[in-house]
């Protein structure tokens, strides 16, 4: 399998190939177990789990094809993912009719943001949405002269843009990080580490919560979330993160810290989006992925972990790019 994958993805390091093989093998094992249970006990209702596993196959295949085959394609695919996510978010939030133009301009921010990431212009990329769009979009909204609830629209538009475009574009900038000496996997390794750990964290929290969950953590936001699920999930994620640390240039304590951070931020993203869905009275953001709901139902935690992980890595491993490089050196 590793040989086959290295043939398919010639540009990737052996670590990345190993990780993709592990993911594919574990998916095969899960599918095999499900198949066996279905054969042994046909009366058991597994439709939801089977649907979810099928969707996982789809998503893993699409992700590997999108990210690892060609560098430019990877940026385009991440931009498309961001577009779907942003569209889903503003469709759910119900903007006013007079916000149409501002929304159309906000959509144009997606190609710009990912192009900035593609050309590795960190300065432009990091201020484009938080500064330029932040000032531009309200100004465009005002042109329509409809002031009724305009404050709410301004706030919602910037929030959704930050979460779905700025947040997810950190995935793209991971690919643009410069190569480090002695670290062959590069940005792809980091991206794979982040995405895998975020998703496995979702799965682990779900499984721990299902099997041991007793004490509800935020009952009015998400009745299925429990302390047991959160803590169990965070510990499992940290352990798994420790074992796949070979994808990152981090030292062992750094890997453990980063993995724990991914678990915590992933949980935060999950409950924040749950709260929004509860406010809007919906269960899923859309019906894009069978068994999972909308795209944002799957990547809600990723939109939180991506910026957190990126800036953590940037702080820990890429100090030469920091303006406070000198301070950093003097401190440690």
């Amino acid at each position, binding site marked *: 399998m590793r040989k086959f994958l290295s043939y398919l993805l010639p540009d990737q390091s052996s670590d990345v190939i190993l990780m993709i093989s592990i993911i594919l093998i574990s998916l095969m094992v899960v599918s095999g177990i499900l198949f066996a249970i279905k054969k042994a006990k046909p009366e058991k209702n597994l439709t939801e789990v089977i649907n979810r596993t099928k969707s996982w196959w789809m998503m893993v295949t699409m992700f590997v094809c999108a990210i690892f085959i060609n560098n430019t394609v990877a940026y385009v695919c991440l931009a498309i993912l961001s577009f779907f996510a942003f569209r*889903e978010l503003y469709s759910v939030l119900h903007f006013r009719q007079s916000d*149409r133009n501002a929304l*159309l301009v906000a*959509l144009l921010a997606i190609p710009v943001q990912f192009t900035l990431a593609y050309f590795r212009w960190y300065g432009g990329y990091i201020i484009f949405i938080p500064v330029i769009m932040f000032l531009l979009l309200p100004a465009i909204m005002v042109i329509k002269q409809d002031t009724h609830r305009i404050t709410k629209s301004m706030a919602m538009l910037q929030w959704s843009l930050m979460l779905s475009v700025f947040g997810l574009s950190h995935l793209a900038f991971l690919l643009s990080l410069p190569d480090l000496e002695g670290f062959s996997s590069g940005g792809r390794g980091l991206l794979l580490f982040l995405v895998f750990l975020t998703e496995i964290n979702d799965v682990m929290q779900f499984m721990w919560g299902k099997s041991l969950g007793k004490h509800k953590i935020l009952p009015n936001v998400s009745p299925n979330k429990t302390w047991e699920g959160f803590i169990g999930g965070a510990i499992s994620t940290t352990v798994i993160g420790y074992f796949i640390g070979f994808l990152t240039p981090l030292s062992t304590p750094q890997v453990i810290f980063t993995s724990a951070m991914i678990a915590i931020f992933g949980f935060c993203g999950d409950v924040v989006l749950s709260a929004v869905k509860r406010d809007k009275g919906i269960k899923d953001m*859309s019906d894009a992925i069978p068994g999972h709901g909308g795209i944002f139902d799957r990547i809600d935690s990723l939109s939180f972990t991506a910026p957190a992980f990126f800036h953590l890595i940037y702080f820990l491993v890429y100090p030469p790019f920091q303006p406070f490089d000198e301070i950093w050196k003097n401190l440690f």
Partner: protein
Amino acid sequence: MEKPFLKSLCLRVIYRGICRPILKFFVGIQYPDCSFLKDEKQFVIISNHNSHLDTLSLLTAIPSDILWKVRPVAAADYFGNTSLKAKFSNFFINTLLINRRPKKDDVANKNNAMDKMLEAIDEGYSLILFPEGSRGEPEQMSKMKSGIARLLAQRPGLKYVPVFMTGMGTSLPKGGVVPLPYNATLHFDKPTLPDSDDSYAIMEQIEKHYAEMSEKYGIKEDDDDD
């Protein structure tokens, strides 16, 4: 009625092959499973109307096998004001053009619209009808006209399929040029047989049906007080 091979193929390619993927992935329209329409011999799809996207998304939702025998009823003054436009829309959208506002003194043409629809029904076509008449304000339903009820009253046994669409008016409102990508949704209800053959009773039934669907699927405006 025989299936016109070329037209059917053409419609299939245009709607299933080209329009549906664009609408689904770029605009973000969410399609339900409409294969149940294949089991119906004939039906009238009625729907709320807010946008030019409405007809297009209905046509792309219908199973491609029966696309050729579904005719959207359209206003002649809009889609057929030139003969080229009429021919074009007849072939590619399969429209049935009617006069929305027949002239008062034109006795011969007074019931022209109803006659044309009945004729199409008798030929075996299914219809798509927007009983509100025009697109109106985005995300708001205006009062339905009674034509649909009179049509169903005159052809007992004909089923209607109510469709409730949300978000189309937000995506492409009246006067809009560029469609805003938006997760607009089509909600199909089951084909329903009118309970009575009195047009007033049918109208009441349809209005009730829509009130229910609007309650169930409609976008609830935030009523927060400021």
